Every structure is written in structure tokens, then in C-alpha cells.
């Protein structure tokens, strides 16, 4: 039985300490050790984006990150997107635009879209589509997802 490694990191703004085997991915540790099942398991090979988290400011596929690699780093998961009270504008717009059907891809899309809008507050439709090309959805055909992200971007640019 491989022995475990202690890891110290920050997850959704909170300091976290956990023990994990070196072979465990960040995705596995988030879901199975830390109880944060919002980040979804789908392809486990970096091709679908369902496991997207933000690691030190960059969106990554957590299935391709070993948990031991986040030592000293900051991670944001879907559980850390909403403010203390209510929903993030992206989450609200996904609801308003019916940008989800089964919803399994939704956490990954919202985290990816947040990373996009943090960087590029005024993306074109094409920029949105290319940024989100690493997030697969099989239910929606992406149309309403793209509209929701563009609408959220517009709202963030002109609040109130």
C-alpha cells in the first residue's frame, strides 16, 4: 500500500490540509476525500472539461493534475463560484437562458467561463466559443450556453 503525502493548499479561499497517495488526481481527492463532488468525473483524460477547476488563476482539467501538485497553491472549484449570498451572475444567466439540460457539464462550463470573463470581460461570440471548446456538452448544442455567457459578460460590464 503506497504511503500518503500531506498536502497543504487553499481551496475556495479556505486553508486545507489532506493526505493522499501520490497516484491520486486532484479530481479524485476533491470528490472522494474532500467531499466536493461539484467538480464532475467524465472522461478522466483531459478531453471533456467536466473536471475544470481554477488553479492559481488558470483553468485546468483536474483529472490531469496530481493532488500532490497543488501544495502551496490556490484552487477554485464550482463550490467557490457563488458569493456568500445568492448566485454568481454566470449561474443566474445559465438558469435564465436554460443553458443546461442534464447539467453534468455545467460546473465545468461555469468555472471555464468565469476564467474567461476574469481575463476578457468583452469577448466576441467566436472568442467565447473557442475558449469553451475544451468543455463538451452533449445535451444542449451549446447555443444557450454561449448566449448565457455573453449575457453574463454584458451584465458584468454594466452592473446595476
Amino acid at each position: 500500500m503506497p504511503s500518503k503525502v500531506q498536502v497543504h493548499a487553499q481551496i475556495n479561499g479556505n486553508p486545507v490540509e489532506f493526505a493522499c497517495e501520490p497516484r491520486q488526481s486532484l479530481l479524485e481527492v476533491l470528490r472522494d476525500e474532500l467531499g466536493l463532488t461539484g467538480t464532475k468525473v467524465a472522461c478522466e483524460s483531459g478531453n471533456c472539461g467536466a473536471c475544470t477547476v481554477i488553479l492559481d488563476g488558470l483553468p485546468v482539467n483536474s483529472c490531469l493534475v496530481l493532488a500532490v501538485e497543488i501544495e502551496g497553491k490556490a484552487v477554485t472549484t464550482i463550490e467557490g463560484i457563488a458569493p456568500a449570498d445568492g448566485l454568481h451572475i454566470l449561474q443566474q444567466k445559465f438558469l435564465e437562458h436554460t443553458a443546461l439540460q442534464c447539467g453534468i457539464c455545467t460546473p465545468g462550463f461555469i468555472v471555464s467561463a468565469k476564467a474567461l470573463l476574469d481575463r476578457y470581460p468583452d469577448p466576441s461570440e467566436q472568442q467565447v466559443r473557442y475558449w469553451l471548446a475544451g468543455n463538451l456538452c452533449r445535451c444542449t448544442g451549446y447555443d444557450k450556453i454561449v448566449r448565457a455567457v455573453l449575457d453574463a459578460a454584458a451584465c458584468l460590464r454594466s452592473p446595476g
Partner: protein
Amino acid sequence: MDVNNPYSENQQGPFRVIGTRPVRPDDTLKVTGQAIYGVDVQLPDMLYGAVLRSPHAHARILSIDTRQALALEGVRAVITAADLPDMSEKIAEMGDSQRYQNDNILARDKVLYYGHAVAAVSAASAHIATEALGLIQVVYEVLPPVLEVQQAMAEGAPVLHAGLRTDEEGMKGESPTNIASHMQTLHGDPAKGFAQAAVIVEREFHTSAVHQGYLEPQNATALYAANGQITIWCSTQGSFSARDSVAEILQIPAARIRVIPQEVGGGFGGKNRVYLEPLAALLSQKSGHKPVKMVMHHHEVLAATGPAAASWIRVKMGAGRDGRITAATASIAFAAGAFPGSTVGVAMGTILGHYRIENLQIDGYDVVTNTPWSSSYRALGATNAAFASESVVDELCEKLGMDPIEFRLINGVREGDPRSNGRPYARIGFLETLEAARAHPHYTSPLTGSHQGRGVAAGYWGNAGGRSTASASINSDGSVSLVTGSIDLSGTRMTLAMQLAETLGITVEDVKATVADTDSIGFADGSWGSRTTFSTGWAVYELGQNLIRLLSQRAAEHWQVPAAQVSFTGGIFTVGDQKLGFKELAARLNEHIPVMASAAVNPDGVGPAFAVHLVDVEVDPETGGVKILRYTAVQDAGKAVHPAYVEGQMQGGTTQGIGWALNEEYIYDEAGRMLNASYLDYRIPTCSDLPAIDTVIVEVPNPGHPYGVRGVGEMSIVPPPAALANAIHAATGLRLPRLPMSPARILEAYEAEEINEI
């Protein structure tokens, strides 16, 4: 009142709730990541399971040695087909399809496809379970595989099942074969009809198997308690059918099994069947009655769960100068995969089901191949069929010099025309859908670039009815808790709540809809066939009527008023000279004796759907790449209960159809191993592949539903491959008879044409 439509008044509206776009309450948990899918289930003291799968496409199993695996620290149990109940005495009563189901769960004597399950283990962690698989020793006698349907039908092909004989309309053939059945429908005299035709087109088509491509892998967590009660948490499209399958496979009474359906991360037909549920239950029994969780890895999903069948289709159609179809024949062979039971019969019913054809012969062949056992995928083979027939129609129109929508208006089915079962069509909307497509600005907008072209294709989908139940109870504030057993794949909790709210005259916020487990609600057929909003909607409507009747009766008793003086309209009860709103009256009566009601249905009156798709493409002659410039999907929904959901179904099905048309296929090496079992190489459409998808919802109310509903979910996957094939033809002059129309195939077609022209 329209004599042909007993619900015509009902359907006129005006509606208060139906047709609006409320936000679904459950969706909040989905955008925060708090919704629990089958893959998220966690139980105390839980073990993890994994499945050993065959590395060979066709082989006899000579021996399985599990001792080393059992000896690995952390492993609790290992099972093979030998641990399933011995069914040999029951084989005759069991029926073939049950035997195939059992053999698919764990291979008995032979493995029949790369990825066929051979053994399963339970262990303290998923990693240990995977390690244990590597220690199970299986000795195989490798046999030659047959991977393609045409090859499997040929003389001398390797035979998968020694006992299989072709079923020819009930008569069994004599020699060993891979052709499990041959079916035929025949009307009129096709030979005579072709003799009368001014133009005839005859073409042959091939399509690859394609996977439903849901993101959430198959999963099941099972607890086989020491008292023999089994509880299963899983992502399934049918909790009752899953329960019944597990009962059959493990030979345990269904009443001892409770299936608690979790949120499902995509199904599209691929989660109708069980794979892991019986294995998890059996492992739990053998692991000291601890819960066992099993989740497939994505490559197992692609390599080993049932896709839509590959197919080989020939179509011949003849038409007069006036555009009327005079005759048509079709021969459809489906690759059923490892066991018989493809959806070729459905393809036979849909291939030309939308046209009025007097002289028609359709032959269907169900053929086994050394590939995963084919399963349902959104519209069950109608897409394969439409790719063939709508490409031929396009060519006929070209030869006739006729507008493709005009041709379909001439030949399209309408109310009163006979269906394939002989009964006449009730009110349907094919002609209206065609008119709406023709009137759309897309149809006449100019194409300005080179190598651009526009394609049109139509499609037909019958939709399903089926058994549903619904139950409701009144809460202390008079609001209603609605419970059904219909798994919610994409928003049906809301469309059911909306139908109940409409029926009761209350707001949708006052109806809370949930999906219950198999112990807590009456039977429901699974969420398939685009049936939920229609069939379970009927149960909800009946339930609403029952609730109104009950409340009226109780109101009469409570206020001591003759029954004739109690009435209910528009959400208001009139009780003698009192007027009370639904909630107020319900809450008051509920205090004395709780108010609850139920309904169970299996409705007739299913309304078929029709669709017409328009697509503009630009083809790059150097790369063979196809860019979609514009897409418009037009579809008759009968009545769109929640228009945003209908739009979403249309956009989603269209996108799957686009993937089916342009990219998706199963790639095997000669030994029959799947080479592209990952989302990198099994390439489904991404966000950047597509433009916005415009949708037009036509509403020709279905006379068989109180609000006019027709199923919407499956229709939209049917036209896209044909529409794209026709658009590529318009852009390049090339006819692509093989799916997918990938860049490599388009370049081959260009080269073949150059060679022809030389």
C-alpha cells in the same frame, strides 16, 4: 368541438402556465454543483468495484483463475458468470433477449466483442480494484472476428452463435448464420410502380456505429443487505426496468429490490439497459454486505456499452414528372452487435414513413457482429434511415428540377393517410412544418462564397406512449407535492409541474415535482421514446382531474352543500355561495383528513412528430473540412409546454446529428480492438464547431393529448446527416454515401471524381 379532436377546446387556451418559461427549481443545485448524480453517490463503509474486459473481439473462454486477484490486499470479492444463477433449466421460458442480457453482463462461454465483461472485483479503493483486474488470469482461444454487417451476412463468415438461425417472419432457417432475422413490409406492386416512373434513383449507403456520447459514465452503487434486501443508487433512464432486469438476472423477486434513481448526466437511450447494477449487487452480497460502488471509465463506456447500430442501406425510388412518388424499395441491414435485437424494425417504419407511397417494399435484416451489443440512441435508427432516403429524395428532386420542399409537400403524409399499421393518421403537422421551413428567411437567403451549398432534409418520428403513474398530496399551505417515477433527463419535472398547475388553475411555484424511487411510486416505463411530457403528462392531467373531483366531493361534505352546488373553474371552487381558491380550500380540507390522489395511464393517442432542417455549409477542397455556416431546425411539437426546453431538445438533437454526420465513428483494427475509445479520438461536436442553431417550433396540437403535446426529444437527430449530405452535394457536386462525411472521405470523393473526369 372538433369531432376528431375531443380536446380541441382545451388546446385552444389561453394558457396561464403552459407555454411560459419558468426556471426549474432543481436547476439551482445543478449550477452550484450540489445536485447528486449517480457518480457522486457516497455511502459509509463503501467498497469500489471494477470490471475485467475482454481484449479480444471473438474468443472462447477456456479458463478464468481469480486466485491471485483474491489474494491482493484490499480485495474483497471476485465474480464471474459462474456466480450468476444457473439459468439452464429456465432457458426455454427465459426467452432469447433475457439470455443475451445475462451473457452481456458477464460473458459465459464466449466473448463476443472487445470490452465484453468477463469478471468483476470489489476492493477497498478503486485503484486496488483496478490492480486486481490485472491479476485475473483468463485463457482464451482466439477466433476470427467479423466486424462489418456486409461481411457478417456473407457466405462463410465466422459465426457468432452456433445455434442462431434466421427468423423469417416466424419461420426459422436451417443453417448457422449471423442474420438473426429478416422482416418485410410490402404494399402494392413496386415493379409496376417503377415501370410508371419518369425518373428513378437507386443508391447504396453505409453508416458507422455511433455512441450516445453522454458525459456521465455508467455507474451503480448497490447494497445487498444481510436480510436479502437490495438497494441500488444509479443513473438510469428507467428505475423500474432496471429493477426488473436485476431481478431477472439475479433471480430475486423484484419486491426485494429498490432502485433509487439519481440525477442522470445524459442518457439518450444508452442508459435504458443495465450493465453495472447486477454486478454491484452481487459483489455487495459477497463482500460482507458492504455497499459497492462501480463507475465505468470513459474508455469502457465507448468500447463496451451499446451504440447505435452501424448499417448498410439500399434505397430505390421512382417518381413521375409531376413529382408524385410511384414506387420505393429499401433494404436495411443493421449491425446488432454481439447479440440479436437491433432497432432495424424502427428504421423500417421510419425510412419512408413520412411519404404517401402506394407501392412500397421494405426489407430489414438484424445481423450480429463482433462489436458491442447495439442499443437505443435517440430515434433508434431513424437517422440511419433518413440519411439514405432523404439523400435519394434530394437526387430525385435534382433530376426532376423540382424544389425539394415542393416535392415533399406533394408527397408528404397528412391527416387521414394510412399509417404502416393500416390505421389512418390523426391530425399531424408535416405539411405545416414544410411550409414554415419554406417561409423562413434562411430558405431564400443568398449564398455568396465559393464551395458553399444549402441542403434540406425532412424526418419523421412516431414517439412513444407507455405506462406512467402520478401521485399528489396537499401540503399544509395548500400547495401540491407531485410525485412520479419518470426519470428527469432534461427538465420534465418542470413540464409535468406546469401541466398540473395548468389543470388545477394554480401557479407553477405551487407545485413541487419530484421523482421517487421504485418503492415510493407506481410503475413507470422509462424515460425514453420522447414519452414523458406526453404520457406522464397524461397521468398528471388525470391526477389533476381526480384531485378536483375529490376536493369537490369533500367540500360538499364539509360545508354540507349538495354536490350539484359545488363547481370548479379557473382555479376557483364555488361551494354553495362561497368562492374559495384551490390552495385555500385544499389547505382547509387537508387539516381534517389529508388530501391525496393518484392516476395511472397507458395512453393511446401518441402524436407523431415531423421536422425539416435547413443547413448551409462551406467545404474546403484542400482539407475536406466542412464548416456549418447556418442551421435552422423546424419541428412540430404539438404544443410546447416549455418553449425553451423544446428549443433545447431541438438544438441538442441537431448537434448530435451533426456529429453523426461529420465526425463520429468507431475505428477498429483487424483484430477488432476499438482504437478510438476516448473523447479525443471519438470526436463529438464542440462549441467552436457550430454556429447558433435557430429553431422554429410549429404547433399543430395532437388530438390525443389534453394540451396537444407531441414528443419532441428525438425528432431533431433524424434529419441532420441527410441535410448535411445534401448541402455538401450542393456545395461540391459530390454525393457522399458513407457516414461520417469526415474530411478524409470528402477528399477521397474529390479524388475519385477527378479520376472519373480524366
